[in-house]
Structure formats: C-alpha cells, structure tokens
C-alpha cells in the first residue's frame, strides 16, 4: 500500500471571500466584514486591500467608519452566514473533483478541507501538479486559498494555515517544515499556552525539542499529543464527509436593490457558477428557481424553464432578464437565491428532410420577449376546452414539435373574428326577430337573420350560461357584414360576439 498523502486547502477570511465571490464590483475595493449586534459590531474578516488600509480583526464599527473616513473607500459589510454556507457548498463541490475522501477542518473565520489524495498521481500527476490544478480550480470559482501537501494530516493542516500559496513537504521532512511555525497553531488551552510562553517556547520546533516525559509531568498527558503534533507524528483517523450535490447560490445585498441591472450583474455570476458546477458533472440546468427576498419580509418567486436543459450562460441570463422584466419585484430586493435543478444534456437527432423548426433555445428567448411585450398569459398555443360554451379556450405553453399529420382534405369553414370583450348592442325586434342593432357608433339594418339557436349549460355553477344566438346579415352605410348576435337570457342583454369572416 502506498504512503498516505494529504492535501489541505485553507481559505482564510472566508466571510469576506463568501461575500465578494459574487460581487466583482467590490473585489477591487477594500472591504471589511462586521459581525455581532448593532451597535457593537466588530470586524471579523477583511480582504487584503482592507488590511493594507489598516483594518484589523476586532475593530469596532466606529473604528472602521473612522478608518473609512480617513482613507476613503473602506466598505463595511455585515456578515452573512447564508452566503458562507452557499460558498462552502461551492468550495466543497470544487475540491470534490480531486478526491472523494474529504474531511473538514474549518475554523471560525476560515474554511478548510483536507483531501486524501493517496493514489491520485496517475490522475493528476505529482502532488505539486495536483495542488496547482486545485488552486486554479478554486481561482475560477473566485476563492483564494493556501494549499499544503504532506504525508501527515495535521502537518498539512497547520502548514496550510500558516503559509501562503502552495507548500509541498516531502515525506520525512515534516518536523523540519513545522519547526518554525508558532505554538498557537496547536490550539491548546490558554493556561498551558501561557506556561509555554513563560518558558520561552514559541515555535513547534522548540516544543518538539523538549523531553517528552518531563513535558507530560508538567503539563499533563495532553502535552504528549501536542509534542507529537509538533513532530508531525500524530496519528489521525480520517473522517470523510459526503458532499451533497445541490445547485444553489445565494447573495445578500448590503443595501436594498431596486435596479434590475444590479440584480442581473450579480445574477450573471450566480448563473455562471451554477452552469459550471452542472457542467463538471456532465449535466445541464433544467429549471432555475429565483427567490427574491424583498423588503417587508416578502419573497418574490420566479422560475426559468428553458425548453431543453442547457448550460448556455448567456441564454440563461437572457431568460432571467426577461423573466424579471416581465414580473418585476414589487419592492426593493434584499437577497437573491438561485436554486437549479439539474437535467440531462440535450441530445437532438436532426434530419435532412425534417421540416424547418425554430431552434429551441432561441425560441425560448423569443417567447420570453413576446411575453414581455404582450403579457405573460397572452402568448402560447390555444387549447380548446371540453365544453359546449362558445369561444372557450385556454392558453398553454408553446412547444415546437414536429407533429406531421396525414393529409386530410378539410374544406374551408367560415371563420369567426371574435370581439373580446363582446360589444354590448341595442337591438330592435320585429316580430320576435332582430331587425336593427346599434353598436354605439353606427346602426346596422338587419337584412336576414337566422335563429335563435339556444345554448345553455353549467346552470349549477356561477359561470353558467343561457343564451340565444342569431346569425344575422346586416348592412350599414353600404357595408354588408355577417355577424353573430347573442342575447343573454339571464341578463336580457344583447351582445355582438363575433363577425363571420
């Protein structure tokens, strides 16, 4: 069996990284993250630019604001645990591409995972090559992390915390590599740390040089474990975690957002991330649920359903834009959550002799644009209702399908042109038959009328109907028309329902 090998990645300042990951507009600015209750919030995390400007962990909001007023440009953001959870899921999914055995080693403001990379040389090359690929993968997901590779679990973990970039320790040299690291990495109780400080022991190398028996006699049995950690000789039972596959992205805004452009700016990054994650598993996005948390604790929900599962980011972003334009949120947005359902990638068999059909993805965008113009429920395919009520139909989603039918010779039938809503008319009767009607603008003299054709139904419900229909041939100002007049028997009203055409 080959020697165990571990790679640890340590994403420091994770609260700020989680917030800035989807906000490219803030990535080039100094940002500090505050946590705690107002007004005694304290800085818990910051990006390197903020640290350069003098921000430090533990600063109060007042100090941060004073620093911002001095230097200008320091942005103070509240900590978002939900953003961190979403970012952690993305990070975990990213590292899961390199090893199925992962153990979490996160701390308060850092997210760390240790990967068991034993036996991955044939897949990813030597440990340094794997570490570089891992770092590039993290970079593409907008994470900064230090990576350490070692044969010892704890050595890799401690080196990743205390170093930057990539560190690879060859087997047998772990103790040397750890020698200069501070004792604080051992996370021992304060009284023991104080004792070691009094003794002048500040590095792991100095701790490892102490005689084990004397150390245990003075600090207790746990001192043996710390010494073994310093010597990189501490055994560890690996406890792998299972990375659940869920395509979810979350972003919380520091101030309520009203502009759609700002939403789409963040939404584009979220869709990018979702599409990339789905694509790494050879899958596509079938649906994307958009939850907009609004002011007043309301939630505005939208759903993007492409005709076929896709990972085309521009296309999905266009659908998102059109969906938001068609259903704008009624209030300012506090946070944006995208939850996608994965689907199998599209496979279409094309044919040389197949009739021309609209391209599905392009048709989706076109229909979304049409809905933005005409209205959500006014674009689609009509479906006739199973009822005798005249003119009843419902709209259904349009799916371009090749549904070739056998050649059937259907003779032309006179079509109706409906008036929606029907036009109320005044009708003059002659011997029980309509002789004249007036539609509010002009009078029509009825030359011939056919009817009445009585129709009724649904008398047991509120939307029942009971009407007499008349086909009339009328004339007005030299124009002859054939139209459908209806007398609503329940209301005793005449309506002009349609014209024959």
């Amino acid at each position, binding site marked *: 069996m080959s020697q165990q090998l571990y790679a640890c990645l340590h994403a420091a300042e994770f609260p700020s990284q989680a917030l800035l990951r989807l906000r490219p507009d803030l990535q080039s600015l100094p940002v500090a993250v505050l946590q705690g209750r107002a007004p005694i919030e304290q800085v818990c995390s910051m990006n390197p630019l903020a640290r350069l400007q003098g921000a430090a962990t533990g600063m109060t909001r007042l100090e941060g604001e004073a620093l911002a007023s001095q230097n200008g440009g320091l942005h103070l953001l509240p900590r978002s645990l939900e953003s961190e959870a979403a970012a952690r899921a993305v990070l975990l999914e990213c590292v899961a591409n390199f090893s199925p055995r992962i153990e979490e080693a996160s701390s308060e403001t850092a997210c760390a995972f240790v990967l068991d990379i034993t036996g991955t040389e044939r897949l990813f090359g030597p440990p340094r090559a794997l570490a570089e690929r891992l770092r590039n993968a993290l970079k593409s997901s907008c994470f900064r992390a230090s990576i350490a590779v070692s044969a010892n679990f704890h050595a890799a973990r401690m080196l990743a915390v205390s170093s930057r970039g990539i560190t690879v320790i060859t087997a047998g040299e772990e103790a040397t590599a750890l020698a200069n690291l501070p004792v604080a990495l051992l996370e021992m109780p304060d009284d023991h740390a104080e004792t070691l400080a009094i003794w002048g022991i500040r590095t792991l190398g100095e701790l490892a040089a102490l005689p084990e028996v004397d150390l245990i006699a003075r600090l207790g049995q746990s001192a043996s474990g710390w010494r073994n950690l310093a010597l990189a000789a501490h055994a560890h039972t690996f406890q792998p975690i299972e990375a659940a596959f869920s395509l979810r992205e979350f972003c919380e805004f520091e101030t309520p957002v009203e502009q759609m452009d700002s939403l789409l700016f963040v939404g584009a990054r979220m869709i990018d991330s979702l599409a990339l994650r789905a694509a790494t598993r050879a899958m596509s996005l079938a649906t994307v649920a958009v939850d907009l948390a609004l002011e007043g604790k309301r939630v505005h929900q939208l759903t993007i359903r492409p005709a076929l599962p896709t990972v085309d980011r521009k296309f999905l972003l266009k659908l998102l834009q059109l969906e938001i334009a068609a259903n704008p949120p009624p209030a300012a947005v506090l946070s944006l959550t995208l939850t996608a359902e994965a689907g199998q990638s599209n496979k279409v068999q094309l044919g040389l002799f197949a*009739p*021309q*059909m*609209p*391209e599905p993805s*392009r*048709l989706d*965008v*076109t*229909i979304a644009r*049409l809905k*933005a*113009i*005409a*209205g959500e429920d*006014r*674009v*689609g*395919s*009509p*479906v*006739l209702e199973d009822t005798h009520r*005249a*003119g009843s*139909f419902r*709209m259904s989603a349009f*799916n*371009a*399908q*090749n*549904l*070739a*039918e056998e*050649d*059937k010779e*259907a*003779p*032309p*039938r*006179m*079509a*109706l*042109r*409906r*008036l*929606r809503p029907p036009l109320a008319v005044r009708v003059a009767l002659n011997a029980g038959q309509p002789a004249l009607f007036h539609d509010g603008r002009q009078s029509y003299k009825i*030359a*011939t009328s*056919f009817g009445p054709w009585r129709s009724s139904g649904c008398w047991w419900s509120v939307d029942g109907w009971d009407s007499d229909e008349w*086909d009339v*041939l009328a004339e007005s100002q030299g*124009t*002859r*028309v*054939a*139209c459908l007049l209806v007398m609503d028997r329940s209301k005793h009203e005449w309506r002009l329902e*349609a*014209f*024959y*055409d």
Partner: protein
Amino acid sequence: MSARSATALRLEIEHALERSFPAALTPEQRTIRETASTGIAEVDALLDGGLPVGAISEINGPESSGRTTLVLSFLAQRTASGQVCAWVDADDAFDPESAAANGVNLRQLLWVRCRKAGGLVQSKQAAKPWTQLDQALRATDLLLQAGGFAAIVLDLGDTAAEHARRIPLATWFRFRQAADRARTSLVVLAQTGSAQTSPAHGSNAQSSAAVALGCAAMSPVVAGGTVLRGFRFEVRNERQRFTPFAPGRKKPPASVWPAACAWDVAELSDDDAAFECARVLEMENSA
C-alpha cells in the same frame, strides 16, 4: 440538322455581340419561387400554386369577406405538414374554434395576443404605452428574426386601414428581408380602407408584398331559408410579383370559392351555393 445549325448560328451571333450584349439571344433564366398551397383550389389556381414562401403576402378585405377563412385554410395546410406557424393578433380577434374547424393543428400554432393600450409594458420613452399595432409589429419582428416558422400571420384585420398604412416602408422592407432569409411566409391580414383614406387596390405592405389579394363577400348560402350554411367569397389578384412565364395562358383576374359554416358536415358545392344564393336573395328582396 436545321436545329443544330440554328444553335450554331445563335452562338455565333452571341459571340459577335458579346461585348455589347451578353447572351443577346438566350432568354433570361427565371427563378422558380416556392409556393405553398392555400388548401382552396380556386385560390391556388389564381396564384399559380399558392402563397409564396419567403415573401410577404397581403390579404385585404372588409369584414365578412372571407380573408380570415382563407388564411386559416392556408395555416391548416402548413401545420398538417408538421411545420409550426404563428398568429400575431393585433386586435385579439382570433377564434381557436374556427381554426380547429378549418383543420389547423393548434399545438403547432403560436398565438400572440396583443393587449389593449394601458398594459404594464411601456416604451422607452416611458409614459406612453405601446399600442396594439406597435406590439404586433414588434412581435412579428421577433418571430421573423427567430426563424423556423413556416408561416406568420400578422392580423391587422380590425386595425383601421389609415393606421395600418402609417407603418413605415422601412418596416415592411425589413420584414421582407427577414422573411426571405427565414423562408417564412408572412401573411398580412388587413382591412380595406375607405376610398377617402386609401387608394383603390392599395397595399399596406406597399412594394414589399409579393402577392396582394383583395377579398369580397359574394352572397350567403342558406339551407331551407332558416340556417346559414356558408358564404361564397370572391378573391381578386391585385398584385403578384414573380409570376411564372406561361405563354398563351390568360389568368382569370378573380376566383369565387365557397366556405361552409363550421357545423355543416357536408361540403358546400358550387351548385348548392348557386341554388341557395338565389333563395336568400329572394328572402332579402321580400324583406
């Protein structure tokens, strides 16, 4: 032998005149434009096969002139062959029951119902909402750009002719280009304007329409004096570009075709129509 010498002679003359008149004695080759049947034999005969593919066809007429029936019959033919069509309804007048009765496969029909002004969507100039005509033109533009539709009907049948005639020529030109590129038959269903507002036989699509048909109602067909069985319509060819060259054949300027009501199970024959027409005329005279 004589034919061979004629060919040689022609080639010799053409060669001599090559610099001044290229191919002087060879008739110019004509492109055969693809057409799609309307499903009505009389109209197909009038149009030499049907409405053109990849071009604009305009069907004008007043109310009750059979223009909608003619277009639905055309769509029925297109959807029966497995193709998808679109109906851009400027006035929300489309009747799905009539379409189904004419044989249109509704699942392959995209219906865009433009809404009355005052909706949520507003133009970039804000304040002023899009009119139904604006919506219809934008929707048609989008559908033509999307491609893949065998036929798109721009239904301006209830839009006043004076409004429809204000559509800029550039719009029709763009539609013609897009229809040609997408191999889509764009059918414009329009209203005939009054004599004061529009010239006789004028076309809304102006010079961009490859075919312009004028529709008119002839007479109703009545069964037993109590039931309206159908109508006889007249369709007149007002404009047709790219007419195939057919020496010695004179096309009729107009055709008459019958259409039965949706509930009439029997097909309306011309003899029935003529007989019943006489009856209804008698009824009208007596009234």
